């Protein structure tokens, strides 16, 4: 009964509308609504499924502070690497042995000339040391000799 009453009410409502214009006008209106391109609903299904699949792609969101932390870490690694390799390059870990015969004469002369003062000082120091040793030896062998005469 309730179902019939509902149907009657619907029918009455539609009849009221049909009284305004002919029922055919409403039918034509709806016929136009239902005009769609060929295979439209199949295409719509595919489009919607594609759209929801794209929405399901995982989106990794990185917050601002995380971005800053990542950037700082990368910079630190780069800076550390740069400093490490620079330091390694400047330290000569192993000495290079060169035979004196292989050094060009010009280089030797240049070295001596640029370090002349130090060489002379070293030489004089060596002379002094040897003289002292000789004096000792002489004093031991000849105790009456005047040591001042030998030094001059």
């Amino acid at each position, binding site marked *: 009964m309730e179902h019939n009453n*509902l149907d009657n*009410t*619907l029918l009455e*409502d*539609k009849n*009221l*509308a049909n009284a*305004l*214009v*002919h029922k055919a*006008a*409403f039918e*034509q*209106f*709806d016929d*136009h*609504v*239902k005009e*769609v*391109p060929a295979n*439209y*609903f199949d295409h*719509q*299904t595919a*489009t*919607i*499924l594609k*759209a*929801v*699949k794209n*929405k399901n792609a995982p989106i990794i969101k990185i917050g601002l502070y995380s971005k800053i932390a990542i950037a700082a870490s990368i910079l630190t690694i780069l800076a550390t690497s740069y400093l490490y390799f620079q330091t390694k390059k400047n330290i000569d870990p192993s000495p290079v042995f060169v035979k004196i015969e292989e050094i060009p004469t010009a280089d030797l002369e240049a070295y001596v000339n640029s370090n002349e003062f130090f060489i002379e000082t070293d030489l004089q120091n060596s002379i002094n040391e040897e003289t002292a040793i000789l004096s000792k030896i002489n004093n031991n062998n000849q105790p009456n000799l005047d040591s001042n005469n030998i030094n001059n």
Partner: protein
Amino acid sequence: MQSDQELVLEFKSSIQKEGPFTQLLKRHQQKVYYQIKRMVNNHMDADDIAQQVWIKVWNKLDGFKMESEFTTWLFRIAYNETLNFIQKQQREALRQSDTENIDYEKNTSASGDPKSTQIQIALEMAIKQLPEKQRFVFMLRYFEELDYEKISKITGTTVGGAKANYHQALKKMEEILKKD
């Protein structure tokens, strides 16, 4: 054949949601599209709105509590999306300052069709001039043949309010048609 409720439950409980969703989509897409197109009278717009509706269904179906029928919930989404679209169009039309003299006749489905009658054109224009809510209620009642209880849930009004909307729509159409 699984019922809407069974498909919804399967969607909620399954990792593979596409299967039940596709079945719901194929089952109801035509009705949703037609109802939207009755409102906007334009295939491109109806297509856009319908897509938005189904994307929203996908996103929100896990949260659907099944306190009402799936179709009620579905049409509620369609109702909201359609109204949002129409209101947005009206705001843009106002911005472009051509809303006062909208050429309804130009946008009717019958325009350019040699077989169309003046009555059909008049009817379309009358429907277009209805306020959106009245138009939606009228369409659901007359073309989808839904009862007022369902219409009230879809439009977020009372049963009495839905009935009033329908009869107000009839009265407005009568006034417009008599003018013409």
